[in-house]
């Protein structure tokens, strides 16, 4: 489903070129649970951004559902992000002036869905995340774990094929971190593809397939021994 071939990503920092990614090749099938680990600066976030179509590779090809998405226009990329990819961030990235329900509703709003249809979906997804009673609260009235659950609800409401999570527990205490991970893993059980970027080994080792990156290259790609 996700196929990366010879991906290069070069940043220009001052008059120096920095190779953030070098000859990265990766194939992820539908329904896989994948973790990308590595020290900071290893290029794992850059890789995630390229998979999430927030960044374009300097060279190489990226196929998403057998379609070369590196050639899409800005508008088509936005549409692909909206429909196929869900993001979960370390800092939740909720819009502070909107309620939980309104935050979850945003992707549907951007897609131009009619309000009546939206309300139904939003309330279903929030119920599923166990925060149905908090839907009219603002982010500042929610705990960290609740906020991340709102963010996950928002990432899944468009029923994407892949969820990209960048340090999803990095800003949470142990207990709520565990809850959030369990929710994400439940999504995998329902057939979603999950890619988690982390430098927390405990979280990374929960994934079935584990990728380690160093200096912009994939150094190991192992399946967890069951």
């Amino acid at each position, binding site marked *: 489903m996700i196929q990366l071939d010879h991906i290069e990503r070069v940043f220009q920092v001052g008059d120096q070129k920095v190779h953030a990614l070098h000859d990265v090749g990766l194939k992820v099938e539908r329904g896989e649970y994948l973790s990308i680990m590595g020290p900071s600066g290893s290029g794992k976030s850059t890789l995630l*951004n390229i998979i*999430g179509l*927030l*960044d374009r590779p300097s060279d190489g090809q990226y196929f998403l559902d057998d379609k070369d998405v590196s050639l899409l226009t*800005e*508008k088509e990329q*936005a*549409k*692909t*992000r*909206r*429909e196929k*990819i869900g*993001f979960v*961030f370390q*800092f939740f*990235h909720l*819009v*502070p*002036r*909107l309620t939980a329900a*309104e935050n979850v509703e*945003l*992707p549907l*709003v*951007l*897609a*131009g869905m*009619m*309000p009546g249809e939206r309300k139904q979906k939003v309330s279903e997804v929030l119920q599923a995340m166990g925060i149905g009673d908090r839907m009219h609260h603002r982010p500042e009235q929610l705990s960290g774990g609740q906020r991340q659950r709102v963010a996950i609800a*928002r990432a899944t409401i*468009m029923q994407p094929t892949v969820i990209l999570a960048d340090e999803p527990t990095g800003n949470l205490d142990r207990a709520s971190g565990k809850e959030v991970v369990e929710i994400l893993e439940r999504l995998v059980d329902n057939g979603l593809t999950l890619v988690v970027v982390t430098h927390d080994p405990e979280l990374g080792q929960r994934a079935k397939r584990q990728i380690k990156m160093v200096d912009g290259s994939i150094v190991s790609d192992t399946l967890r021994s069951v």
Partner: protein
Amino acid sequence: MLLKDYTHLAISSVVRNRFRSILTSLGIAIGIAAVVLLTSIGEGINKFVLSEFTQFGTTLIGINPGRTTTHGMAIGVFGSVRPLTIDDAQALKKVPYARTVVSAVQGNAEIESHRKRRRTTVYGVGSTFPEAFSLSVASGRFLPDDDPVSARAFAVLGSKLRKELFGDASPLGKRVRVGGHRYRIIGTMESKGQVLGVDLDDAIYIPVARALELFNREGVMEIDLVYSEQAPVDEVVAGIKRILIARHGSEDFTITTQEQMMDVLGSVLNILTFAVGAIGGISLLVGGVGILTIMTISVNERVSEIGLFTALGATRLQILGLFLGESILLAMVGGLVGLGVGFGGAQLLHWLLPALPTHTPILFVVLAECLAILIGLLAGVLPARRASRMDPIEALRTE
């Protein structure tokens, strides 16, 4: 994305920063209030001046002898000017749509009553003069419709002259001397006040033929023709030309319609209104800069939100729309408040100073609000463009 959702998101952001939004809108509000108030005053003065001018009626055409032209040869060959005569005025009664025709001569002479003397303006006019110039008789009656050539020696006094010569006593039937000739007073006029520097009250009216004799003139100074309201002006003017050219042999006269005068006056007054409006426009400009500033700050503060929207699949155009929507909303709210204040201010001013006319045309109100929206749009373009061009990765990195 639906318009309703753009609106909702814009409102939520504006409400979130209430205090800042109010201050920003205030700039536009002051600008719009200034524009509305100043143009109201400008329009009021405009209307006032026009009504001063049109108090003689708008269906008046003046005909004066002579014509301003330049000839290649000696003026004497073609340019001989025949005076306009009382007979011309009689003939002009046949012009289509003509209601009344009045010939007029004006001069200055000494008026001598029983005891007092006063040097003042003498108008030689016909019997229909009050009708043509919307004047009314206070007592007695106006000059009778005599044979214009041998009119009887009757005179009518303006209100001020009557007071000067006779005080509170009735002058009807009394005799006065005008330039040495004896006249009998048969009426007095209502006060009209000064009109554009001409005091019709300090005057005496006598038959036109006698005035010609008094001032030793061959022809009258002006013939005025009043036509019926619905009549096409061009036809009336053409009729006048046809008759006078037939009588004079050439076009040696000048026709001035009220409409022409109003056009000139109107354009001058419109420039006045425009000029005061432009002064108000400067404060609008300042308000626009205020919106620009706040929107720039707002974009900087919400970098991570912009990144999020991109990640959620917003197109650059949608992000542009979101920020433009906000700046337009700020300007719109400011504009509406400004309209209220400006309109209220104009009413208040009129109430405090009844002498100062104000008038707020609906068109201006609509235009002012459109202007506010336009300013919001223009002020929003730069910050919104910056937001839409932001690199989503950079944007998401900031927290």
